[in-house]
């Protein structure tokens, strides 16, 4: 029943199971400007993707491209301007329009970037884990502490009774991020939105946190939205990678295919820019110059046109629609280079 919700081409061909979460045409415009000259920051435009059971979907892009906005909309910390969020076949923005229900909050959990800001400094670790268990009535009072210890053990904080008694300031960044993961796990969610979970951690402990996510994905079938600006870690953990630019998803494919055969000029540029010790410093003049367009007055056409080395006339006039490049890995791109041109999606975005 849930499967029928997702258009066939959006389901990943192999590997992960059924689609758990789907977003369709998600759009977020923040109003700015004055009463008489209203403007909008177009933070997110027409974003659609799915996350399946046991699938890690990586979302990469520059800062300000709308990655975090995506996570915040899905976690329903703020309402989208338009679009649909569908969890297990239920269009949650219709059925619970004002605030997310308890069950939605149980199914979709979030891990924030800054483990120093996301834990309350005056409460113990055990308090942080007890609260979700109590609110969501996950266990009886008697089993509360046992469950807390179990969670701490799952995320590798041992001995658990000692960790439970600590305050956040007594822990390192990596340990705190593990607590944040344990807190998300407490309510046994189906989807975890991880917003740059490792970027504030010491480099030597990042892999530990990534490996933990991988393990949770495999053992519990949790689906992750992994938000990052680091392509290498997206490739490491992401089954699928989506590239975002100025609020548009411009390309998505299985991580491996995306990195090996990037189709969109922006993805190609990103790939060429990642430092790669295997290759040495490529002393090639950077091809693209030019600035990222302002999100308030986006030029018509493709937002990347100003920086694109392969820009054509049509790019400055209209936003391309999605072009499917490969069915097997569901590789699609949003670029005029790959034909098909102005689909109906392009016109819908123009209206927004």
């Amino acid at each position, binding site marked *: 029943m849930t499967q029928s919700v997702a258009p066939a081409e959006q389901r990943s061909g192999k590997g992960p199971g059924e689609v758990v979460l789907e977003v369709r045409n998600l759009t977020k415009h923040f109003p700015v400007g004055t009463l008489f000259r209203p403007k909008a920051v177009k933070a997110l435009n027409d974003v659609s993707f799915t996350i399946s059971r046991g699938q890690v979907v990586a979302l990469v892009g*520059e*800062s300000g491209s709308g990655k975090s906005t995506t996570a915040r909309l899905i976690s329903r910390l703020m309402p989208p301007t338009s679009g649909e969020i569908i969890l297990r076949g239920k269009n949650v923005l219709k059925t619970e329009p004002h605030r997310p229900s308890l069950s939605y909050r149980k199914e979709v959990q979030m891990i924030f970037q800054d483990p120093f800001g996301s834990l309350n400094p005056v409460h113990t670790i055990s308090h942080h884990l007890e609260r979700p268990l109590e609110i969501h009535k996950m266990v009886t009072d008697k089993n509360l502490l046992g469950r807390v210890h179990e969670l701490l053990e799952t995320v590798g904080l041992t001995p658990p009774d000692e960790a439970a008694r600590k305050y956040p300031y007594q822990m*390192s960044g*990596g*340990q705190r991020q593990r607590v944040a993961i344990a807190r998300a796990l407490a309510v046994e969610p189906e989807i975890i939105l991880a917003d740059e979970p490792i970027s504030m951690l*010491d*480099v*030597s*402990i*990042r*892999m*530990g946190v*990534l*490996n933990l996510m991988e393990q949770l994905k495999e053992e519990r079938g949790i689906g992750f939205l992994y938000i990052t*600006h680091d*392509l*290498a*870690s997206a*490739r*490491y953990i992401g089954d699928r990678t989506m590239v975002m630019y100025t609020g548009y998803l411009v390309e998505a494919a299985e991580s*491996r295919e995306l*990195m090996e055969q990037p189709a969109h000029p922006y993805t190609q*540029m*990103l*790939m*060429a*820019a*990642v*430092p*790669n*010790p*295997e290759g*040495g*410093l490529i*002393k*090639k*003049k*950077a091809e*693209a110059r030019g*600035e*990222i367009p302002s999100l308030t007055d986006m030029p018509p056409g493709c937002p990347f046109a100003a920086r694109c080395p392969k820009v054509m006339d049509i790019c400055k006039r209209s936003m391309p629609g999605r072009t499917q490049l490969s069915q097997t890995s569901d590789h699609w791109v949003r670029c005029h280079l790959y034909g098909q041109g102005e689909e109906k999606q392009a016109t819908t975005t123009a209206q927004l």
Partner: protein
Amino acid sequence: MEKGQSYQPVMSQEIAQPQTQVKGQNQIMSQSQNNTAFPVQTKPLLEVKDLRVEYLSPKGPVRAVDGVSFSIAPGEVLGLAGESGSGKSTIAHALLRVLRPPALITGGEVYFKGKDVLSLAEHELEEFRWQDISMVFQSAMNSLNPVMRIGDQIIDVLVKHKKISKREARLRAGELLDIVNIDKNRLDAYPHELSGGMRQRAVIAIALALNPPMMIMDEPTTALDVVVQKEIMQQIEELKEKMGFSILFITHDMSLMVEFSNRIAIMYAGEIVEMAAAREIFENPLHPYTRGLISSFPPLVGPKRKMAGIPGAPPNMAEPPTGCRFHPRCTQCRPVDKVTRPQLQEVLPGHWLAYHEGMPGINRGQAGQAK
């Protein structure tokens, strides 16, 4: 090297070192300036010996940098890699003598072109900073004055150090922006009117203003996106080739470091644990920490394989572990490592390692030049 005999520790920033040899050193230095065949053959531009920096705290001193020695040749890029808190930035600040209490340089020697940096008086420091070594800080946002126009900030440096008129300084400031690929008209822009990448370029322009023989770059691109990072790093590379300055390049990003540096020193808990040519560090890392650090950066190409990272967490520097400071996190730890501190030694030609006799993976036989 000639100065090796005067090995007395400097007890505070202000205690002066004997000055006698400085002049002779200078002459030697200027002769060898043009010889760019680095790393080892040339006379170093900067020499750091046994540097120690402590932060005073109510619970006793915290030794943030503990006996660090390295040198940088003219035109060379030395990368200083390590995690946050390993002492990288403290070294940078110590070299420029901009540490403020509670941080104190408690020992060691720093020579720049033979000049004893730790004994420079305040007015000499003014000349030394920026003229001899300039610095690019991590966050351009914080190192530019938000209420001053970009041009004025460059002019400030020029007028202060070069004693030229404002008009001349403005012309030169325009040229400097030109060098870093910013339109001259942006001289009158405020920092907030520039993008992050342009701001960082402007900071580099300021660092270049006096054409110094050495620059310290403390995480120059960490706050930037990869595409902009690439542009800036290429720009620095070009400028370096044109102007021939040396760079002390500080970052925690091993991939970028290997790409950009000639030589790399790996720091852990205030000490250098390994130092070698960049490719050597990447292809033949010997220290377990270096290996762990490299395996903390998943590759972008090639087969996908499990990366382990490093177990545990960086140590609390107020109570550093005994012996080898990495031992609580080390998978190859032996009893001797818990007690005695390994010393940095040259185990292969040009490859230095903090190392105990019989360390696994290191064959003394192959270590040709080992002492």
